[in-house]
């Protein structure tokens, strides 16, 4: 519950962004994000809200951990479970 998850913004409509998380597209709220967000930006998401725009130059470093956590499903991986929970907390999926 302390861990945010980064994703790439695909589309912005008002206070809702469509964000790509490793191929999974979800809608997240932009009510509390720290800076204006545009398609192509990365954002850090927590319980369905973007809490930080991550500079594109630093997104790679931020994504690596999550790629590792989500690469393989290991039973009882509490950290990966939390990341999946975070993704589930985001809004509806898009086709």
């Amino acid at each position: 519950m302390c861990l945010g998850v980064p994703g790439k913004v695909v589309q912005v409509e008002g206070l809702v962004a469509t964000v790509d998380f490793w191929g999974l597209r979800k809608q997240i709220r932009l009510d509390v994000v720290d800076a204006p967000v545009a398609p192509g930006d990365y954002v850090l998401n927590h319980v369905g809200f973007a809490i930080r725009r991550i500079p594109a130059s630093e997104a790679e470093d931020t994504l690596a951990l999550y790629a590792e956590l989500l690469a393989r499903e290991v039973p009882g991986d509490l950290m990966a479970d939390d990341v999946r929970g975070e993704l589930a907390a985001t809004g509806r999926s898009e086709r």
Partner: protein
Amino acid sequence: MSSVADATQLKFRDPAAARALGAAIDKVTREIGRDPVSVMHVCGSHEQAIARFGLRAAFPPALEVIMGPGCPVCITDVPEVDEGVALARQGVRLATYGDMLRVPGSAGSLADARAAGAKVEVVYGISEAVELARQTDEEVVFFATGFETTAVATAAEILRGPPRNFSVLSAHKYIPPVMEIVAEMPGSRVEGFLAAGHAATITGWAVFEPFVERHHLPVVVAGFEPLDILAGLLRLVELIRDRTPRVENLYPRCVTREGNLAAQEQLWKVFRPLGGRWRGIAHVPNGNLRLQDRWSDLDARRRFQIDVKALWDFAPPSLLQQCICGEIMSGRESPISCALFGKECQPETPVGACMVSTEGTCRIWHQYGGHPQLGRVAAGAVR
């Protein structure tokens, strides 16, 4: 150039880098010359990463890295759980995070209430609870737990204007004040703090400056990559060795000096800090986040008469009396010194909240083999 500056140049997924950082931490810890040198982190995700990536194997034996009160579910106090249980039994639909379900109150948990017919729904976030309220005429109460990172989501939904049948039972907590309490505890050995990157994303790192000023203990903000954590710990022991207590931010890609001002504005428009007990630890001045008076319509504590006393008659004598969660979260004991750990207290049959939440110290230690000092950094534990 400091060794940390070197470390941050290295590739994050590099076991050689992890070993180099481990060696540097070892060297600096020896130079401090005390055993143990105790530092505390205040984040369940840090403990998960430390256990999962076997980082304790890279720590020198003299460096004690303690998980403090960094699990929001764990520090939700018994009377708060009782309020949730009482509300659910009174017939409202109570929505909350899955981790909260089995946290023991004085007379059972929300899971027990659900088994007895109460309507308790698991949601992943507040927006799902609001959605639930939109689909029904029933009263829906969101039992809100979590630190400031999570509280901003609650604030945002309240400011958006949820439906009339929606209200919030806030058990949100605010981390900075509890660091003061832990530092001031008699017998505390904590010499520095590793602050949680994503909570600091909201508050900014300057929030820790008054703490450093008062207690002369260094605070280092760190991310969640294995190398982020090792680099953070290295900087922390360097600051301890050099007797230069200050705040340092080793997670600049997410944390700034001021933090997320838009989020803070919304947080403090909705909540006010209030003193209250954190389970097993102490009364924490300004440690609880409660709804401000202007939101009393949305405050479940104002909307409903919550009768917790009715629960107490049913309270069975409980193993809870032997639980040392509080001592563990304040860094005075570790799970392996608890008589219940791994015996009466297991993830399936938790006695204390630290065994319930996936961010609880006991749950994490239990998951990773009881005592995760033995993980290995080599052989791909850090990849």
